């Protein structure tokens, strides 16, 4: 067989793809907790401490995106605890994949800041524990621009040609365009979106790069004068260069909460509840926030936090708007995004 090598390569590739979906499976032992979230989102020292105190072994599986998580959860992946974003939890709840929390096993549930509770994906606080909140903000380097940036609208300024790094995310970037037009982040009206597209295309000459996961590199290395990125990335920028200025855009903030939930199919639900109670402890929760640089959702953590900026009052986020699932309009957003990139 002359082309057998090619076949073997193709078959091996197929096996690799198929086995990817199986990594979450584990033997059904008693003292095991299967966690499923982004890489490094739960700090390693917290996980080790949990194992030491309870004897429960933690298996940490990772995903790259919320959508990948839901795909694996639906195809039968056995996870005990999932940490993901608000909108996808809303979809997962609609698919009946979430188990109700047994709050008797989670006495520290009372530590949660009510400002982060009762949100659209879990109005009765039955299924989720908020873990971290993020608000994308603008950051700029006053040495590289004379502009006094106040909001999203300033990103369109012609003096910023080829000098902005913006997150590679359709919903957020189209969202801020809508905000400059006085609209909501979650517009579904095709005509309004069409206008937003026209406006967004005018932003392209100012964009130096689109980057979802490491935009801080471009701000720190002086590649770009202005950036629009998540809170944690803003803090990374500030740690490297304290002269950078942070802007809370005047048009209104976008907002997201990553929360933990226990899947209906979880083999070790009690272990998951024990873990949730463990991380909701004030001191530990503060240690987590100080490592992941996201806003804390825990009132008991406030006193222990080293980065005080991570504890914000509920009033500050009052006007912030969730980026929700827009159903059918997702396609319009995506097609605008493709056009924006191709322009």
């Amino acid at each position, binding site marked *: 067989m002359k082309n057998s090598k090619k076949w073997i390569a193709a078959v091996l590739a197929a096996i690799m*793809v198929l086995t990817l979906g199986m990594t979450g499976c584990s033997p059904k032992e008693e003292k095991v907790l299967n966690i499923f979230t982004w890489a490094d989102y739960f700090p390693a020292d917290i996980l080790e401490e949990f194992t030491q105190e309870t004897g429960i072994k933690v298996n940490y599986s990772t995903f790259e995106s919320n959508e990948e998580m839901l795909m694996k959860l639906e195809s039968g992946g056995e996870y005990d605890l999932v940490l993901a974003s608000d909108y996808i939890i809303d979809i997962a709840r*609609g*698919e009946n994949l979430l188990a109700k929390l047994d709050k008797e096993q989670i006495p520290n549930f009372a530590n949660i800041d009510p400002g982060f509770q009762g949100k659209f994906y879990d109005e009765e606080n039955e299924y989720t524990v908020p873990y971290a909140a993020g608000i994308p903000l603008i950051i700029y380097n006053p040495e590289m621009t004379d502009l006094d940036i106040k909001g999203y609208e300033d990103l369109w300024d012609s003096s910023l040609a080829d000098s902005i790094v913006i997150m590679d995310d359709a919903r957020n970037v189209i969202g801020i365009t809508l905000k400059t037009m006085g609209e909501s982040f979650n517009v579904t009206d095709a005509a309004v979106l069409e206008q937003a597209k026209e406006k967004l295309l005018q932003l392209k000459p100012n964009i130096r*790069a689109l980057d979802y996961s490491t935009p801080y590199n471009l701000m720190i*290395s002086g*590649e770009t004068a202005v950036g629009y990125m998540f809170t944690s990335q803003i803090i990374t920028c500030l740690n490297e260069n304290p002269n950078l200025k942070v802007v809370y855009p005047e048009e209104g903030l976008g907002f997201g909460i990553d929360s933990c939930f226990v899947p209906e199919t979880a083999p070790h639900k009690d272990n998951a509840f024990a873990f949730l109670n463990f991380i909701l402890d004030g001191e530990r929760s503060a240690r987590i926030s100080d490592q992941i640089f996201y806003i804390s959702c825990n009132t008991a953590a406030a006193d222990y936090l080293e980065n005080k900026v991570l504890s914000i009052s509920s009033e500050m986020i009052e006007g912030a708007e969730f980026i929700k699932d827009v*159903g059918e309009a997702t396609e319009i957003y*995506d097609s605008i995004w493709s056009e924006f990139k191709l322009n």
Partner: protein
Amino acid sequence: MKKQKLPSTHVSCQGACAARLPFILWTMVFVAIPLLYILCMSFMKKAATWGILAEFSLDSYQKLFDPVYVKVFGQSMWLAFLTTVFTLLIGYPFAYFTSKLPPKWRSLVLLLIIVPFWTNSLVRIYGWMILLRSQGVINSLLIMLGIIDSPLKLLYNFGAVLVGMVYALIPFMILSVYNSIAKLDPALVEASRDLGASRWRAFWTVTVPMTRAGIMAGCVLVFIPSVGLFFVSDLLGGAKTMLLGNLIKNELLTARNWPMGAALSIVMMTMTMIVIGIYKKVSGEKSLEGIV
């Protein structure tokens, strides 16, 4: 190793047939069925929030003619074409002169081409970012030498993407061309020289046609992956361009339009088969031996 996972077969079958059965089963389960699954999915509909509806629909294929998607195809093809041309222009002379080196040096040069493959290509692309960025190696050097005053914008443009693509794929071209040049009988070139051909004429009329199979194989090996190497455009181009690979990833993960992603994959596979078909026709190779 993976073969052990398969259930043993109890079918009574003799000799060659029995030996082939696990392989056929394996191919069916891991290649044919997934491909069929993708093909079926491409004819279905996207559900409102999540998943697919099992209804027949040609929506995805109709959408392929949307100007946005046509443009993505165009951009991908153009980049793949340029990448192929540049790898050939650089790779051919490189392979040619390598084959003329003394054996000891020749193996060293070939080793040096292969060694970077031991490192993840993503890491090597990050290396290029360090070279090209505003405060990177090249700009610092040029400023230090007084050639430029302010840093050049070398990163996050089409040129940087092209450099990265050529860099990532050139070993395929060099190794394929080198193979066919090494096989070439030097007596043929000598004969043409004896008959009065100039060096150039001998090269164009003897060496190049005799190594056509290697050139074609190299072109196919460079062209096909360059349609899908989306991380190069994401990292060096600042994600400002959209290639076929990016688009498929986007449709599957961000837009959650799986049928569309499937349809795009089908089109991409069809295109790959066309390219291989052209290769077979032009090179006269019956099998894919030149490539594999």
